[in-house]
């Protein structure tokens, strides 16, 4: 039975009078050398069943022993998400599945490691983090025969346990998310934090970060509606699409007189829709009970505080610092991009070397997309270029050409390159006379511009550029035109 309803065609806002309520459960593989409870390597992409030991395979008699590093990374993550780190226990979650070797997953239940945190999104939107707990990953089943590797209708499956027992943190948000944009921002922000603190490489495409989405809809002010959980959301883009699709599906269902069943659904990215996977039922009786093979985890205050002290400055604070330094909005794309790449320090270096902040941001953002946190070009070279441009010694267009050359050569003196290329910005008085000439030559355009048609300015600027053979600075031309008009 396929429960897919037809895909809504309009991907814009929800119908009048509805809001979505979204919570995310994000599973993250921790960057340890070994598994959560045994010494097999935690490594992706190796030959099947090479990272196996008695604990990983759930052999009779094998016993788990907790990996200290995994706990440390989980605490790091909890602190970065503003959680309270507390004394906690492990439970068994019992269910049968071939990639679950012991037929139970060791996870945390009523006493998780990290609780009550939050994550800030643009616009000072605060998304609560209910908990971030430790648990073990499962192995991997591959389905063969039947219809093209899909689980349903396959002839048999093969199981690889390399991933079984890899440490995971499951981060459960509160249902505070109200738009698919916020959901995407949440995932992106979480990923930046994970990478920044060295807890995980957080690669959705390799499965080291996996997102399950809980969606319900309601009329604002009403209690929460019945939620559906969506699995298999494999990219940030898919997170947004799946949520938008699912919210509209639920609204359609309710408006046409139906009700929402609590169920698990599957996101089909190619089809752009969700399908029923299974309803919540008996099979979900996981019979949680305390894992008797493990003992209380009670991180002492000193340990937690030393981890807190070792945390790097988090992305949000770095964006704010960068924004304050260079005078941009902390939620601007530039702030996100530069901090994401770790190039905020580099921009600061350019500024410290006397560079012009605004140009520095633009140059680094444009020219160093392929570079890491430490571009090869000396910051002083970029600084010199921004000064040259600020002082009107070269035009913006010329500066771009010089920048390209500097990047290509891994550095270079901007003034020398400008001289070699014969670049010189015209002085302002020369440009002013060219502007006046352009106004005289195109009185219609000038009239329109004076009537507030900004587009008309293009023709005038174009004329000046032509006359100056590109040596006039576009910004200077514009400024002169504006000055002339307001006279």
């Amino acid at each position, binding site marked *: 039975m396929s429960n897919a309803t037809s895909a809504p065609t309009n991907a814009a806002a929800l119908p009048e009078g509805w809001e979505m309520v979204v919570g995310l459960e994000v599973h993250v593989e921790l960057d340890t050398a*070994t598994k959560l409870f045994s010494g097999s390597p935690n490594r992706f992409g190796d030959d099947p069943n090479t990272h196996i*030991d008695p604990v990983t395979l759930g052999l009779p008699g094998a016993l788990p022993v907790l*990996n200290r590093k995994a706990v440390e990374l989980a605490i790091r993550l909890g602190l970065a998400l503003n959680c309270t780190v507390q004394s906690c226990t492990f439970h068994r979650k019992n269910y049968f599945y071939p990639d679950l070797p012991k037929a139970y997953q060791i996870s945390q239940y009523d006493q998780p490691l990290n609780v009550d945190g939050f994550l800030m999104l643009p616009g000072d939107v605060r998304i609560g983090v209910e908990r971030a707990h430790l648990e073990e990953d499962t192995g991997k089943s591959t*389905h063969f025969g039947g219809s093209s590797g899909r689980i*349903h209708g396959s002839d048999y499956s093969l*199981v690889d346990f390399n991933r079984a027992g890899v440490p995971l943190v499951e981060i459960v948000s509160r249902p505070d998310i109200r738009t698919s944009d916020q959901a995407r921002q949440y995932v992106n922000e979480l990923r930046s934090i994970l990478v920044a603190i060295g807890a995980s490489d957080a690669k959705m495409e390799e499965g080291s970060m996996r997102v399950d989405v809980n969606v319900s809809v309601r009329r604002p002010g009403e209690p929460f509606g019945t939620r559906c959980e969506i699995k298999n959301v494999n990219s940030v883009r898919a997170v947004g699409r799946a949520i938008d699709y699912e919210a509209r599906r639920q609204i359609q269902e309710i408006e046409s007189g139906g009700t929402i069943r609590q169920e698990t659904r599957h996101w089909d990215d190619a089809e752009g829709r969700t399908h029923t*996977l299974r309803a919540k039922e008996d*099979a979900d009786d996981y019979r949680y009970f*305390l894992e*008797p093979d493990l003992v209380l985890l009670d991180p002492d205050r000193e340990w937690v505080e030393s981890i807190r002290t070792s945390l790097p400055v988090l992305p949000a604070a770095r964006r704010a610092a960068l924004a304050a330094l260079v005078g941009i909005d902390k939620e601007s794309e530039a702030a996100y991009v530069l901090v994401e790449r770790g190039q905020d320090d580099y921009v600061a270096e350019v500024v410290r070397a006397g560079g012009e902040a605004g140009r520095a941001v633009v140059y680094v953002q444009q020219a160093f997309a392929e570079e890491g946190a430490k571009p090869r070009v000396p910051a002083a070279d970029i600084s010199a270029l921004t000064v040259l441009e600020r002082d009107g010694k070269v035009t913006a267009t010329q500066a771009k050409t010089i920048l390209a050359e500097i990047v290509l050569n891994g550095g270079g003196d901007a003034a020398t390159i400008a001289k070699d290329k014969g670049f010189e910005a015209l002085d302002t008085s020369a440009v002013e006379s060219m502007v006046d000439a352009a106004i005289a030559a195109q009185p219609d355009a000038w009239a329109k511009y004076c009537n507030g048609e900004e587009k008309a300015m293009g023709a005038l600027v174009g004329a000046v550029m032509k006359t100056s053979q590109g040596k006039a600075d576009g910004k200077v031309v514009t400024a002169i035109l504006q000055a002339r008009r307001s006279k």
Partner: protein
Amino acid sequence: MALECTAKFSTTLSSLMRVENARIDDVVVAKVARLARLDLTPDELARMTEQLSGMLEHFRDIDKLDLADVAPMPQPLPLKNVFREDVVVPSLDRDEVLANAPAAEDKRFRVPPTIGFTE
């Protein structure tokens, strides 16, 4: 999972009463057998129902205890913070391990298809 968690631990008095008055019958036993992945023949189901209800009846002896303020004791000793270091140890030999498997293929464990099964 978080919601399930709250639901399970907020057992109200009324739900407790309901459970205590409930008798284990063959419907419940059949459901438990499904959870445990055991096939019971009709005979086995009947016998199991009878034996389990007999035992559970006997186990009602603890109902007369006042346990309201007693802390559960899931483990005998109050140990805490036992760790291993994040150091790789040699993995088992795959051939030796797969030799013990009922069915193996292409370096992996082979299992029947998951028809009508949940992911």
